């Protein structure tokens, strides 16, 4: 296990080297929250309520998804595609290290840095904007939020890794990823809480894995779900995690055959 901890630590060190890039990346994240924050502030003035959200719960949703985003959606695994294309994958096949765990460890290193910055940014924003936030006090909900986030983390890792595995068959790794990010932003509830959608559409969303990346965890935190809904949601997350795991394993094996057949 030490080896993976080392990998995470080295990834952390790397972000220090690319300080400027990283800070810019965070600045961009903040700008993106600001647009949504002010939009909803304009839509739901104090005392009003829209789609079942009052001002404080909506603003908590927006800022909360930003924080969860830095935990769940920060990742390096997209680089798998480049590594396969450049042939560097061979380096890993020759050493006693598990490729999945290696990349997961890299993600963890990246997430650690992102989480810290996100907390700092949100604190600053809190001081400046003084949003009315909803603070969850029931440890029961907090625990379940945490569980949901862990599942979300793993699911997203598999998604990203799968996108990278495209590299076995095509040098075009970035275009699919571009679309994926756009789709994800919409389907995960990063733009708006998914339950404002018409009932029929929303029920479709609930069977998709993306909903459980951002929307689901924050809803648990807000205490707006019933026990049954939480339980169902976690079950669905579990199922999707397993399905993705199986798909990743399958694609990896197939891809490896192609890779070694080409003798790179």
């Amino acid at each position, binding site marked *: 296990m030490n080896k993976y901890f080392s990998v995470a630590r080295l990834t952390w060190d790397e972000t220090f080297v690319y300080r*400027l*890039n990283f800070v*810019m990346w965070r*600045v*961009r994240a903040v*700008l*993106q929250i*600001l*647009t949504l924050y*002010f*939009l909803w*502030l*304009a*839509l739901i003035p104090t005392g009003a309520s*829209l*789609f079942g959200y009052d001002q404080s719960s909506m603003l908590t949703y927006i800022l909360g998804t930003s924080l969860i985003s830095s935990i769940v959606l920060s990742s390096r695994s997209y680089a798998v595609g480049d590594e396969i294309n450049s042939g560097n994958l061979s380096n890993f096949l020759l050493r006693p290290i598990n490729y999945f765990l290696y990349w997961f460890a890299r993600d963890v290193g990246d997430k650690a840095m992102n989480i810290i910055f996100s907390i700092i940014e949100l604190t600053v924003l809190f001081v400046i904007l003084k949003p009315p936030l909803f603070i969850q006090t029931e440890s029961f909900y907090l625990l379940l939020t945490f569980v949901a986030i862990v599942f979300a983390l793993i699911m997203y890792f598999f998604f990203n890794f799968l996108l990278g595995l495209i590299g076995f068959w095509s040098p*075009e790794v*970035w*275009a*699919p990823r*571009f*679309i994926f990010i*756009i*789709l994800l*932003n*919409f389907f995960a509830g990063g*733009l*708006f809480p998914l339950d*404002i*959608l*018409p009932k029929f559409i929303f029920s479709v969303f609930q069977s998709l894995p993306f909903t459980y990346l951002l929307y689901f965890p924050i809803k648990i935190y807000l205490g707006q779900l019933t026990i049954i809904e939480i339980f169902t949601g976690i079950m669905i997350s579990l199922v999707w995690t397993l399905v993705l795991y199986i798909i990743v394993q399958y694609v990896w094996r197939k891809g490896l055959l192609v890779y070694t057949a080409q003798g790179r």
Partner: protein
Amino acid sequence: MSARSTQIALSSRFSAVIFVIGKLLRFAFFFFFLVIVISKTNTIAGYSFWQVIFFFATFNLIDTAAQLFMREVYRFRSYVVSGEFDYFLSKPLSPLFRTLLGGSDILDLPMLFLSIAFVVVAVVQMEAVSFVGVLLYLVLIVNAFLIGLSFHIMVVALGVLTTEIDNALWMYRDLTQMGRLPIDIYRQPLQGILTFAIPVGIMMTFPSKALMGLLSIQSVVIALLIGIILFYGSFKFWQHAIKHYSSASS
């Protein structure tokens, strides 16, 4: 020049098509979101449904037009790093012109047409549109383009000085994205910053407001002035950067 870069884009047709689809999706998703919200609230910051759509469509129009013509900027860094930029300096064609406008991407056209279509539809649906309003609208669109150009020039000049261009470009994109909706929604002092310090507001919101007759003559004049000053300033900055570069490179 643009024909050649279109060719190159087409040769990697798969990813090019994917990018176009991605952008259309992004547009569609935000549009869908606006529809859902307005269906419940009937207004955003005091604006009606079609007015909000108009703001959004105008934003897309300006944004896409800027990208269409100034695609080449995204390849700028590789030119500096590879040394190809030095060739630009030695050719008779103005290096600034080459850097900015050398790589129009035909694939931006669908987005452009879509934006124009929505602009037209929204104008038709809105009431009380005057001839003067349309005129001011067009004038301020050109002004917006001028401001966008100025931003790109500054970014490129920065790239010449530091080769660090990507972050600046992304900053530009993120800041202008805030103009997707009328900047009225932002509280002060953010609104003020976005209007005067970093003229996103002038770029994206003013044209639409002018059409709706919500912009005072002073504001129009100020907007044009800022556009011209910014353009002049960015150009000077570029010249300074080139001078510095030519004397420093070996």
